[in-house]
């Protein structure tokens, strides 16, 4: 199946189109963040703090979505948070995919001992639940955005490496590879020109659909205080800032509903959209889990 076929087939489903619309919506917010929420500071990802009052403010004319504890503007946080989500998701997927392709490709193509050693390396990462491993790595490297992305990359590459390896193994024995070899092509040329293009595109599609999952894991780390630094426009951190207010006050248990509903809603929509897209593509790409 060519890429064109896959894409046209995937968008035959309403769910996939709904997912795409939401993703594009967030992408536009991320793209136009400097216009939607102009920043005054040097680092735009750092949320401006309007005072030091602990109590969140309900949505009003100045703060469209209200403020969190310590007066971070939720609107600003959501807008720049979408940019942050794309930044984290794309960076992590890119590097994890790069490592996965290199290691998986080498393992599948070389075979033998190289394969054995590289695959045991993936076993080591797979032996610990990814959330736990990411948490430990992020904690040991220190609370910082780059370190969080490193942690997420380390736990993400092995699954891509295995997929690429599988792809390479299945393509390696095909006739056109044999033909190229018979024509006297070098190993490197065969690998780069004939095997890789045919082995990786399903993995590339699957990996890019993992952006939602990666943003979710990143938000979890931030929620635990092991991800982005204090005050970063990051949805996970905004949710963490709501923890002290979920019981409400002034005799109203839902008095501070917006502190959780706004960042939680943004996260839900973002992840849901990627899952809707992912479902449609997975049905087509992954024949083993095809629905009856």
């Amino acid at each position, binding site marked *: 199946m060519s890429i064109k076929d896959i894409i046209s087939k995937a968008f035959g489903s309403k769910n996939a189109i709904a997912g795409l619309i939401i993703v594009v919506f967030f992408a536009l917010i991320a793209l136009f963040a400097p216009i939607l929420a102009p920043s005054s500071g040097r680092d735009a990802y750092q949320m401006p703090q309007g005072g030091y009052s602990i109590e969140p403010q309900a949505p009003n004319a100045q703060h469209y979505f209200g403020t969190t504890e310590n007066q971070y503007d939720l609107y600003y946080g959501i807008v720049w948070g979408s940019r942050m989500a794309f930044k984290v998701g794309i960076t992590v997927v890119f590097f994890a995919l790069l490592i996965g392709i290199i290691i998986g490709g080498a393992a599948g193509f070389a075979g033998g001992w190289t394969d054995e050693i590289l695959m045991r390396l993936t076993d080591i990462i797979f*032996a610990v639940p990814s959330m736990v491993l990411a948490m430990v790595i992020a904690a040991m490297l220190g609370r910082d955005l780059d370190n969080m992305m490193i942690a997420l990359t380390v736990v993400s590459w092995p699954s891509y490496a295995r997929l690429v390896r599988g792809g390479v193994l299945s393509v390696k024995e095909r006739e056109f590879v044999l033909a190229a070899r018979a024509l006297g092509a070098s190993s490197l040329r065969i690998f780069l020109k004939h095997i890789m293009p045919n082995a990786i595109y399903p993995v590339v599609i699957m990996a890019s659909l993992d952006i939602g999952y990666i943003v979710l894991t990143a938000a979890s780390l931030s929620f635990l205080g092991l991800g982005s630094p204090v005050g970063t426009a990051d949805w996970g951190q905004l949710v963490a800032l709501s923890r002290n207010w979920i019981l409400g006050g002034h005799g109203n248990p839902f008095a501070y509903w917006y502190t959780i509903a706004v960042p939680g809603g943004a996260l839900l929509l973002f992840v849901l959209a990627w899952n809707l897209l992912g479902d449609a593509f997975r049905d087509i790409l992954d024949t083993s889990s095809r629905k009856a």
Partner: protein
Amino acid sequence: MLPLVMLGVTFFLFFLTQRLSPEMRASLYIQDPRQMDSLEEVIEKYGLNDPMPVQYFRWLKGAVKGDLGYSESANMPVTSAIKAYLPATVQLAVAAIILVVLFGVWLGIISAKYKDGLADNMIRFFVLAGFSLPIFVLGLILLMIFYGKLGWFAPGEYSFTADMIIHGANFKSYTGFLLIDSLLNLNFYVFFDVLKHLVLPAVTLCIGSFALMVRVMRSSMLEELNKDYVRSARARGLSDFKVIYEHAGLNAMIPVVTLAGIQFIRLLGGTVIVETVFDYPGIGRWGVECAQQLDIAGVMGFSLMVAVLFVLGNLAADILYTAIDPRIRLK
């Protein structure tokens, strides 16, 4: 293979902990700021400046003997901390997996029965939404409603009154599992109290992870419903209920068993966030505390334990899979 992987995991984790400077690691041993002058002595005493492999082998030697060091965040040796926290987590994971299997199978059957109908579409959307809702957001919202508004379920593992009873003189600890211990003590107040505190975290875990179960049950059920024996059963005039639940349903549950095994293990690792949200004193919350406070012995012990459980669990699931279905028995 398993020991080799474990060696690799611990070496990798140990390598990570060495990213912290010897001074930072030494300060863990210091409780009083006035002792800061003796930082050098501490580094010397515990060999924190030694080459990394030397330190790793020292840790490994202890680990083999069952000594994983002292967890500062739990204020007890790591092995005692694991013993103290693991039962609560297992209890939570068992409660959650029961819910996952019950709801997963039930919704999967309904979804397959009304394939592409309204019920099917609604279930599939609900499941996908539950899967997409971050577990900490869901947990906080449930707390807001059921604790803040309705006051039905409180966070924690048990109430203050139950705490008094559990740590009282008449309550004997047999297994460490409070649900079992309270029954053995014939103390039903504690039993129901602990059970009540399990509801919210278990439901949260369930909603976050039963998507896969519903999906697998649905496709397995659809496959069974198309088979000849189902048609014969219908031809013999059996009721819809009997055909669906007794004939097709039971056969469709084969993949569910394996999946339940795998998911149970995943839940053990996935309780990290739920336990933190609900302030539930299990292994996951302890792990988070270790990571936050850079309690190195704790982090090593926690991840080693999770890794062992995870690997053994996956192995057990593989064995279970071949044991339960004669068609896929490996030669």
